[in-house]
């Protein structure tokens, strides 16, 4: 028998990157919030510099809720379904921001206007066949103030490239105008990063240090980064990585209006016959609870957002909550993160320390930053080179076909070359398509008996061409810096990824979008959705800052329009 709890103003499902930010503007405006989180609090003591535990064994994800709900994947509706061995995200107060790379990018102006800009410049026929891409309901100018709030509230380090239209070539000359500089200077460079930066300049490109939600100096009383080399999936031992668990959530708690409930496994969002949500049902320690609320903000991960909506069936929503137009799960995208390039240098590059956010970016080949007139694709890739190495993975390096994979010859190769390789990170434009979508798996279930999310998606010609372009330019860059061998790695699949977009897309047209321009459901006025799940284009850079800016905007809208939303 479910226990019915006292009603609250807003229940936020998931206190990760997005939900953990939304709670602050709400509580500061006097709104009472219950935050339901499937994970627990973790602290800097939980993140030892231990590659075996963090990277090889995937702790703490391997023991969490998400791990039991790994989505299945098939490349198309006729293909076999497979299931990955692990979920890329983790459950905790602060979510995956506890151990993510913390690259905190704003999208470029083009990302908001892919359809109109492409049509204007190259003609409508250049939008790839089958793509469901739309312009966002607003441009970068609208989101700028929210990017700014998040950058300052959480703390982002970086080098501005465009302040109010004044271009600074030390930063990204392609970025849209920002109102002011980052609150902190960029993370420091390294010898190898300096070398790559010079090589890019030599090619006539515009390299710059990337933005990161990591302290380059003491910020808000928390330490600067220690560059210890175990940031990647390892969390921060000095609280220099600025997730909501260190910033917005504690500040929201200080208002006395945020109640954090950990280990809460939300099973459904409940709706009445009038088509309004009334609260959520969750399970913890084998007990079922109903948390009534005037407004529900769904802020789990992209896969889980669509899954919870599809599982939440009612009289008013027989095909799942907010799905009477059949749009839940549509417009799924990822980032083609797999298609990287690995290089071998004839000298040690001393990359044993550092972090994935310590590096150099080139944006010349991203978005529409170059002329596509002679190309048969739209979009592009952001090139990123970083200082990130740990011993087990270093010893497991490929041998570029030069030796076997074990024995004395291999040992000699690894001894010589373990510090001579570098793998770039190339994020590329991915467009939404009619046949790339999320739904419920008909066979695979979680421990409670609910179907897991099923991904049906594959990269199309446009994505593969963009990936080839990014790999060609990256190969050129490495060679300019002295690499003696390079290897282009496969693009991979569109299975579970840390950069999953769509499923509850934002847009003015209710026929093609789940939420409106404020992030509230077209069909359910008191249901909001947060996260990259609402983004209609992927951009060519990490999604987190955009998801956080959108979350702040949705929360602020709710606080300012409380009567209209809760009427």
């Amino acid at each position, binding site marked *: 028998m479910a226990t019915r709890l006292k009603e609250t103003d807003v229940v936020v499902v998931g206190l990760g990157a997005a939900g953990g930010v939304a709670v602050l503007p709400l509580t500061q405006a006097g709104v009472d919030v219950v935050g339901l989180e499937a*994970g627990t*609090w*973790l*602290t800097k*003591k*939980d*993140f*030892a*510099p*231990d590659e*075996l535990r963090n990277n090889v*064994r995937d*702790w*703490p994800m391997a*023991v969490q*809720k998400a791990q*039991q709900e790994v989505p299945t994947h098939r490349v198309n509706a006729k293909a076999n379904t497979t299931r990955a061995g692990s979920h890329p995200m983790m459950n905790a107060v602060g979510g995956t921001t506890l151990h993510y790379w913390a690259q905190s990018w704003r999208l470029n102006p083009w990302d908001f206007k892919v359809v109109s800009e492409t049509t204007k410049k190259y003609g409508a026929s250049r939008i790839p066949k089958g793509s469901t891409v739309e312009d966002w309901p607003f441009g970068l100018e609208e989101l700028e103030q929210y990017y700014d709030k998040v950058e300052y509230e959480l703390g982002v380090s970086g080098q501005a490239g465009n302040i109010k239209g004044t271009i600074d070539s030390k930063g990204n000359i392609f970025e849209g105008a920002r109102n002011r500089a980052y609150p902190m200077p960029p993370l*420091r460079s*390294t*010898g*190898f990063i*300096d070398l790559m930066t010079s090589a890019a300049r030599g090619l006539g490109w515009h390299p710059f240090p990337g933005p990161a939600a990591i302290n380059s100096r003491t910020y808000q009383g928390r330490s600067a980064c*220690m560059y*210890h080399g175990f940031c990647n999936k390892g969390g921060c*031992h000095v609280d220099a990585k600025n997730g909501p668990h260190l910033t917005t959530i*504690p500040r929201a*708690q200080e208002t006395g209006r945020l*109640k*954090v409930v950990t*280990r809460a496994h939300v099973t459904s969002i409940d709706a009445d016959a009038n088509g309004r949500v009334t609260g959520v049902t969750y399970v913890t*320690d*084998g*007990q079922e609870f109903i948390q009534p609320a005037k407004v529900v903000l769904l802020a789990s991960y992209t896969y889980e957002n669509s899954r919870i909506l599809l599982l939440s069936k009612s009289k008013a929503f027989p095909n799942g909550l907010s799905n009477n137009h059949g749009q839940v799960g549509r417009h799924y995208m990822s980032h083609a993160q797999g298609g990287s*390039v690995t290089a071998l240098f004839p000298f*040690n590059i*001393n990359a*044993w*320390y*550092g972090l994935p956010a310590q590096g150099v970016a080139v944006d010349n080949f991203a978005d529409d930053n170059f002329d596509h007139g002679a190309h048969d694709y739209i979009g592009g890739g952001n090139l990123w080179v970083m200082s990130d190495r740990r*011993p*087990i993975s270093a*010893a497991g390096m490929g*041998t*570029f*076909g030069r*030796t076997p*994979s*074990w*024995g*004395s010859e291999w*040992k000699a190769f*690894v001894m010589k070359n*373990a*510090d001579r390789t570098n793998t770039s990170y190339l994020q590329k434009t991915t467009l939404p398509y009619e046949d790339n979508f999320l739904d419920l798996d008909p066979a695979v279930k979680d*421990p409670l008996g609910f179907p897991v999310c099923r991904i049906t998606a594959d990269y199309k010609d446009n994505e593969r061409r963009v990936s*080839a372009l990014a*790999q*060609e330019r990256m*190969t050129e860059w490495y060679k300019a810096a002295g690499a003696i*061998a390079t290897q282009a790695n496969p693009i991979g699949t569109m299975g579970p990824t840390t950069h999953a977009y769509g499923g509850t897309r934002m847009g003015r047209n209710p026929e093609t979008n789940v939420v409106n321009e404020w992030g509230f459901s077209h069909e359910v006025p008191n249901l909001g959705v947060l996260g990259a799940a609402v983004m209609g284009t992927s951009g060519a850079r990490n999604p987190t800052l955009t998801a956080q800016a959108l979350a702040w905007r949705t929360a602020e809208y709710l606080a300012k329009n409380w009567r209209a939303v809760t009427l």
Partner: protein
Amino acid sequence: MLRSMADETKGVSRRDLLKRAGLAGAALTMPVTPVLPEQARPAGVSPQSPAPPRREPIENLTAAEADTLEAICARIIPSDANGPGAREARAAHYIDRALGGALRESREAYRAGFDAFDRYCKSSRGAAFVELSARDQDSVLMDVESGSATGFTGSSAAFFNMVRTHTLQGTFGDPYYGGNANFVGWDLIGFPGIRLNVTSEDQRLGSKPTPTHKSAYDTEMFTKAQAMKSEPSVPWLALEKSAPSATLGKPVANGD
């Protein structure tokens, strides 16, 4: 076109490389008599380590399995003129211990794998692996790596890859887990070790920070990982009245 080396690196096996060098056949048909002096020594004993390292009490494997594993690890990362290898790192000890914890699910694969491995050694080479010369041990491992060794459930390559993966973990992972003894793995590849505060100078080209020879858990600031057991799982997922059990990490009061 990308001028990539993907094709060159894809699926290159030791046998392929030896074939390219015209050596594979020779290695397979070579009499037991070794060609080079160090290959006449008992497997795993190198000039640099006249006495094999002392072995720890076995925790999960059988004695015969542990002997075989020691010998396989010693060929995957041999002790040779370039210094100590997986045997000195105690990679087999790491694996034996982990098979009772984080690698528990691999225990059956090891049991069945060793069983098939032993039968294959005896039927194809006439002796148990530990009794073969280093050269014959390598030729057996080439068969197992390539998938051509018979008698395995599925491909023998899966067994090889599992043992190789775990040997690397045991050689290059944190010593806390029972391998990488005396930091031989980290020294081998030049990893300067755990540093909680890395300076700008430590990241310059040509800079060679002094190896710290510290485990992550030598400091008291971190919650200890579970080296012997699996990490606790998530009891609150079950929709039944189960007793609350260990929370992940350090429990902190909810903010209510």
